[in-house]
């Protein structure tokens, strides 16, 4: 096995990204969908950090980007959870399949 480097990390992040996507596509519970989104965002963060470290260490763009992503993720999660809770209150369920009144 060779020394772990950029590409190894990219494999992890890509895999994590699609794991998150898979979760988003298959989970019927809204909160677990939100968890999948967190995985997706984290995979992106890994990317930024990895690129910053291995490819472009001359600036800290990647690092800052991931910091802001984390902040946004927090905000997004907060709003999403508020919305989900509200939805739960009106639907008595957080199954995504049950919230499909709007269609066609």
């Amino acid at each position: 096995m060779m020394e772990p480097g950029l590409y190894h990390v990219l494999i992890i992040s890509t895999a994590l990204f699609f794991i998150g996507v898979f979760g988003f596509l298959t989970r019927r519970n809204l909160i677990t969908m939100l968890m999948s989104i967190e995985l997706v965002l984290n995979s992106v963060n890994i990317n930024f950090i990895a690129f910053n470290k291995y490819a472009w260490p001359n600036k800290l763009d990647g690092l800052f980007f991931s910091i802001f992503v984390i902040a946004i993720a927090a905000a997004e999660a907060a709003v999403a959870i508020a919305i989900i809770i509200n939805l739960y209150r009106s639907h008595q369920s957080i199954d995504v399949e049950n919230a499909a009144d709007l269609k066609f």
Partner: protein
Amino acid sequence: MLNDFLLLMKSELVLAFILFLLLIIKVAAEVKNERLLALIQILLLGNFIYGFFFIQNGSLFGGMYTTNGLIAFQKSILSLGIYLISLLFSDWLKKSEHLIEFFILLLSAVMGMFFLISSESLLMFYLSLELATIPVAAMANFDLHKKISSEASMKMILSSALSSGVLLFGISLIYGATGTLNFSAIPALLDGTGVQILAFIFLFTAFAFKLSIVPFHLWTADVYEGSPIAVTSFLSVISKGSIAFILLTTLYKVFAPMHGLWYNMVMLLSIITMIVGNLFALRQQNIKRFLAFSSIAQVGFILVGISSNSILGTASVVYFVLVYVFSNLAAFGVAGVISQHSGKERIEDYRGLYQTNPFISWVLALALFSLAGIPPTAGFFGKLFLITAGAFKGNYFFITVAALNMIISLYYYLRVIRAVFMDSNEQPIGKINLDISTKLGMIICGAGIVLLGLLSWVYDYITALSI
């Protein structure tokens, strides 16, 4: 430095000022909704007018923020849009428990859009995009007691989260491939390898998602239908307009080296979008949903103009968005008034509307004709310029498809016209007494629709800015 800062960021600063003013009022005083709304309307009008003064070119924050005449004009269009929203939906807003919160969220979203238009770096782009999205997702839930409102809100936040995940992945790849986030530095470093194409497509899907380009549009109709109508109109007009503006910059400037690639992509998506949007719009019963699909089809037309990759394209897209602000807001305004007074949102409920409410019927008719591109409304000029710009490349197949799609779109716009003017109804919508500000908003929209095309200097002004 400070001077520059104040002048260049003046539009954002004014918004911030209004925003904090509202925050203070919220915290400090109990004010009646009517007076508050009047104040907000005045502030927004001031904001709009102020947009035309002290315009300067320049950039700030080490090239993260830039502005020039065109960007200022684009911001003015958005300011005009929110001013009109504050007028048109005054009935709904007055009754809202969360008037101030609504406007705080609205203004922060608009601020996000301002930053978005002005952004010169992928970071700013991403952040302002989120700023322009997350508050709106929350606003979609402002009909707090409606199930569909929370459903719409949920759909929006989840879809946009996924979309921003994909966008971020794209940005990260671009960052990896080029080592920079700066718009002006990226083009030189693009060489069209697979990963860059992939990254571009990931990035583009975010635009596609926001602009509701098929097949990334599926959230649109549901969210539009479920949200409060003011939010829907904001989403469909202001939000789309701002994205269209930044898409112009992104494609024309940042991804200029990939021009051949994105031209094909834009053409393909434009055709699909027009067709699918039209086909779905054909069968809609709910007016909001109907307008949602019609706005999807309109986006197809915007893409026709964007494909031009020239000053003509820029000018015609900006002009079209301006026209679109008037037309679509007028349509939503009418739908909002009717929904507010009668709770009816189905097209068949509109039958016989003209008998009882001629004024709003004419406004609706003007709006729909403008959307359909019928002269002498401004929509005619808007669409014609988009198509002409698109024809610049000499791709007549594309242009013919676009032109033929206008016919399908005409069919469904006429459906509404038919219901309003021709059909009879045993239980027509009763006479609606319009709020004075709503009426003002409608008159402004109507005047805009009629005059914008005939007064050619508006377009010339935009062209002059686009160079």
